[in-house]
């Protein structure tokens, strides 16, 4: 199946905006007063973090639609899976870029800050979801199971977020990562636009990846169906050959 003109345009737009982002982030924007060049990490880190929520949001919505009898269709399960897969990769990248940035700015790879901890829990939650998706079984049963698991994980997120936030604020005030210093209230003009551009560029990339991953999932589905049918036909032919021959 060749990708349509729309998908290709989307892909081109994603690549073009990412190239523009690279130029903006690496060349045009100035160094930060405190963070120096490390600030450039934020131009991919912040968009990736946004993407993470978008991706898991799509998974949650698609799962709800699958469980809603009126909208139940195989495509929602495939979409949920495709989005979660991208989401997990993105979350991994958020953790990695965040750690490297943290090392250069705070001097440590990891702190038990509320946001970091929540992201880490989110990462394992959806790793579990992907592991569950890999487990075989009847297609409809599998899809229903996936959807319920995605929702059970999704309703956990606000609780995790709240608990971790309390945990960090009740015990100690996070001294290194303060909201005020994290994102300067007077963020430099071109920096601000670059972050926005980054979010846009990564959203384009996400849509393009999602379209392709979804299409791939559909093809995998078809392969499974047709493979089974072909195997049955072959076995039948064998049996016919055995019994039919005198």
């Amino acid at each position: 199946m060749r990708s349509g003109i729309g998908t290709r345009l989307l892909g081109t737009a994603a690549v073009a905006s990412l190239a523009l982002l690279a130029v903006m982030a690496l060349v045009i924007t100035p160094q930060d007063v405190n963070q120096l060049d490390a600030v450039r990490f934020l131009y991919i880190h912040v968009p990736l973090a946004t993407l993470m929520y978008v991706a898991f949001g799509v998974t949650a919505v698609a799962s709800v639609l699958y469980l809603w009898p009126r909208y139940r269709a195989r495509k929602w399960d495939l979409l949920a899976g495709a989005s979660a897969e991208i989401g997990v990769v993105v979350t991994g990248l958020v953790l990695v870029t965040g750690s490297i940035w943290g090392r250069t700015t705070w001097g440590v790879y990891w702190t038990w800050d509320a946001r970091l901890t929540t992201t880490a829990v989110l990462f394992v939650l959806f790793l579990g979801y992907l592991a569950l998706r890999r487990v075989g079984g009847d297609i409809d049963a599998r899809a229903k199971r996936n959807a319920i698991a995605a929702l059970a994980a999704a309703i956990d997120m606000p609780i995790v977020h709240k608990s971790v936030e309390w945990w960090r604020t009740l015990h100690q005030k996070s001294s290194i990562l303060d909201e005020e210093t994290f994102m300067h209230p007077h963020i430099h003009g071109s920096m601000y636009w670059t972050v926005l551009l980054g979010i846009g560029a990564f959203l384009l990339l996400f849509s393009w990846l999602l379209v392709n991953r979804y299409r791939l999932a559909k093809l995998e589905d078809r392969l499974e169906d047709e493979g089974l049918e072909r195997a049955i036909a072959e076995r039948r032919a064998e049996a016919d050959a055995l019994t039919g021959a005198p």
Partner: protein
Amino acid sequence: MLRDAVVMAGKDLRIELRSRVATNQVAPFAVLVLILFAFALDPDRGVLARAAAGLFWVAVLFCALLAIQRAFTVEASDGARDNLRLSGLDPAAIFLGKAGAIAAELALLEVILGTGVVLLYNRSLHGPVLLVVTCALATIGLSAAGTVYGALAAGLRVRETLLPLLLLPVVAPVLLAATRASEAALGGTTGDGWPWVRLLGVFAVIYMAFGVVAFGPLLEESS
């Protein structure tokens, strides 16, 4: 529905009572975990006493995993699951019954573990009201979420390895909140503990509601 739930819980608890798996395997395991913690964290430096609340709840989590696995293994053989589905019991009642049985087992385990912490880690108990409420809500939350995931993973070939991966991140807030609340109780600062108890309550209510709604489709799907 409540009567059905009681029937269901009674059935599960009777199985546990007769097979003695919980008493002969899970409870000794709980004590073993406490002893292992002592090996890992030198008892002489006071680390154990200071970390007692956290260690207690980690041990409870491990035991909960075993109890949940167990609750769904008993339904796996002899087509018990199909019988359950054909029994005409309301799925919500089955959920409540199963969760109730697991909660009862966990409560017993918590008593054993609590005694172990007092005796082995040399930690005296304070703030009994806060402790009891914390344990009760955390137990309900754990067993509700555990029953949902237990049913989800039941019938899968990889359930033993998949269940911990699915369940443990979900109950991370319970571990966090229960530990903080217990610490506050033990440390005599009960005021700090109550917000955590509220969080435990919210968790318990949410997963109870989710289980009641989701258990019907969950029971149907497995074949």
